[in-house]
């Protein structure tokens, strides 16, 4: 693999992405590259590229926008309609992103094809959001199924302006899609990465441009994309709520609250996390499609404006349900519990802020957990999940070792 690109605002193409000014003020940057990868370029070579950089007309326009008011920063008009392909995962927390994004694009007059990985007949398709794909079709979108490694075949040789890969977690999976997109003339490539790749820090929040774990699969994709693509953007989400979610989020809390069960939370409960409504992710993606020039070459934390503590999330869910909550803290290690299995969120501060989207695109978050959770709770009850018989084996194990009674 070639050198790690350092994309700055004025260096979005692959060759010039090695160009960066202000090297003197960021020696730690070049050091971190030397330490981690088999670079073909040494730091000194990088320095030699650092002199006069002639910005392309595209970059000049985005630089010029600094002197205008905030609304003037958006360069490309939204009137340009795009043909968008979404390669979507068939399960997991990110599945919902493609669903919301497809619907929003369609509502704005863009044309959308959503390629879901695997088989249309698979059992996985019985779960949301796939069970609601008729909504995409009736809005004028196309739904296809197949193997992303054969994307050209699956889309029947169609061409697109934009591709979003909301599926792969490593280069092996995404590379075929990127390569096909480039060769078939797709102008803009977007990738859903993960905020989970940030190195843990004692100085939150995670900000775009900060150190990531070199071993993470997504990192390989991000690097490759930046190297080979002209107009690209990468999105790093955390957790999501929203109707059509494939993975439980708030439901985990509701399940316990409506059954008057204690809510076991590992650690102190003070850990911060970021839970966004899927519509926020969708609006950020849409803004990037409609402002490809300004967005190009950027990483965006795809999260809401605020952090919530784990205890806070439990309390907000209880408030939404109009019930009280009994939070019980435990130390997973000392009672032999794998908190990854017992609890839906990371047992640590995990908090990114969406600063790039706000500053570059004027994006505004609309997630309002207290309000959004009320709506989520209404649906939770409407589908009868509050009455569904459930097992809480891990909870029981935790509570037993803490000698906490299950029922109030």
């Amino acid at each position, binding site marked *: 693999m070639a050198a*790690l690109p*350092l*994309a*700055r*605002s004025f260096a979005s193409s692959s060759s010039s992405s090695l160009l*960066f000014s*202000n090297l003197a*003020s*960021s020696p*730690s*940057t070049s*050091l*971190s590259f030397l*330490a*981690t990868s088999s670079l073909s370029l040494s730091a000194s070579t990088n320095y030699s590229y650092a002199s006069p950089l002639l910005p392309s007309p595209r970059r000049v326009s985005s630089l010029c*926008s*600094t*002197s205008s008011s*905030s609304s003037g920063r958006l360069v490309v008009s939204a009137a340009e309609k795009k043909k968008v392909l979404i390669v979507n995962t068939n399960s997991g927390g990110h599945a919902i992103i493609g669903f919301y994004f497809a619907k929003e694009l369609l509502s704005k007059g863009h044309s959308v094809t959503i390629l879901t990985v695997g088989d249309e007949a698979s059992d996985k398709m019985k779960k949301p959001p796939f069970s609601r794909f008729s909504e995409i079709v009736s809005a004028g979108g196309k739904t296809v199924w197949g193997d992303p490694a054969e994307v050209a075949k699956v889309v029947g040789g169609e061409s697109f302006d934009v591709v979003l890969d909301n599926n792969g977690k490593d280069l092996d999976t995404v590379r075929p899609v990127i390569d096909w997109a480039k060769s078939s003339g797709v102008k803009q490539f977007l990738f859903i990465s993960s905020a989970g790749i940030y*190195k*843990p*820090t*004692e*100085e*939150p*929040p995670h*900000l775009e*441009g*900060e*150190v*990531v*774990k*070199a071993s993470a699969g997504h*990192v390989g994709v991000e*690097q490759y994309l930046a190297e080979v693509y002209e107009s690209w953007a*990468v999105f790093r989400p955390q957790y999501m709520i929203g109707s059509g979610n494939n993975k439980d989020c708030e439901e985990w809390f509701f399940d316990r609250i409506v059954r008057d069960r204690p809510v076991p939370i590992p650690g*102190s409960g*003070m*850990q*911060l996390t970021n839970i966004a409504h899927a519509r926020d992710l969708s609006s950020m993606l849409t803004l990037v499609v409609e402002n490809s020039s300004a967005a190009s*070459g*950027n*990483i965006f934390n795809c999260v809401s*404006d*605020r*952090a*919530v*503590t784990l*205890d*806070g*999330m439990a*309390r*907000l869910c209880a408030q939404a349900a109009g019930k009280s909550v009994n939070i019980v803290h435990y130390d997973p290690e000392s009672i032999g519990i794998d908190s990854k299995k017992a609890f839906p969120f990371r047992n640590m*501060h995990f908090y990114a802020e969406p*600063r*790039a989207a*706000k*500053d*570059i695109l004027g994006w505004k978050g609309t997630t309002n957990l*207290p309000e959004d959770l009320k709506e989520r709770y209404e649906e939770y009850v409407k589908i009868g999940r509050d009455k569904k018989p459930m097992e809480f084996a891990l909870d029981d194990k935790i509570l037993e070792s803490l000698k906490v009674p299950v029922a109030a």
Partner: protein
Amino acid sequence: MARLVAVQQQNRPASFSALPSSFSDFNGTRLHTSIQYKRKVYQPKGALHVSASSSKKILIMGGTRFIGVFLSRLLVKEGHQVTLFTRGKAPITQQLPGESDQDYADFSSKIQHLKGDRKDFDFVKTSLAAEGFEIVYDINGREAGEVAPILDALPNLEQFIYCSSAGVYLKSDYLPHFETDAVDPKSRHKGKLETESLLQSRDVNWTSIRPVYIYGPLNYNPVEEWFFHRLKAGRPIPIPNSGLQITQLGHVKDLATAFIRVLGNEKASKQVFNISGDKYVTFDGLAKACAKAGGFPEPEIIHYNPKEFDFGKKKAFPFRDQHFFASVEKAKSLLGLTPEFSLVEGLTDSYNLDFGRGTFRKEADFETDDIILGKSLVTA
């Protein structure tokens, strides 16, 4: 003192530093430096130039202790006529560490003093009316009652700039605090809230600044000093509960810059701004950052349950035992304000100019530490 001057041109991104300020730099990969958002810093240049070009008659309530010491210098350098209203208990001027004799002499010769007690409302009214100040910076006001006579005395006041506090925010699980968040009418800082309400109700052009924890050389609140004392003594740092509580520090020089930036700035008219550091920090992280700043080895941190101890009237830890941090994006986007100092840089600045030179405000007191560590008290 070049660093005190408004640093609009410096586009050093918050996530980078000449010092390896993030604790895990070298094993990871710094991928893309999307510094684009820094461009916002350059936005509202017009407003700033308007204030800088015309010299104003400015009154600072206070100004001899901490924030005002830096603010007054910036204002004098910009050519304004600055008066400090104080009781005269502390020296009106003091030479700052690192400040040249020439600069200090120049500043001292220009700064004016109005001696009085701000609680003597009649005196405040008459003395201020007589001077006809155009701008008032209220750095030490705690109660609305103290501000009313100032407004009464100066009907043609161009701007009243108030140092409030992020302490007015109602405690929340859902953070950071934004300027629009709920405030706590019962908080220890309710006087600040009442002052903000007074300003809103009167027909005056006001701006309110809400800092979080302020730090930097000359800090009289034992924030960084508390850690430095322990680090210097080679003592463990006792931190309540998990040490994961998140707080936020803002360098006093960045705060002074913010106070300058709002002067004569239309975008700041009748606005509240949170002003603090760009990033937040855990209690444990802060202890380590202080160690880095002072060149100390990584400290031993002891976590304890404060409920298990009785410290009497003493405070065992200088921060609120809760998450407490505020978003500074409003100031960034409306005023183009980006803090100059990262945490370790700022703490290093504080150490080099203050504690590291042997100066501090409060003597080391390890009584509560010893209670926690279970040691018997040693009498000096």
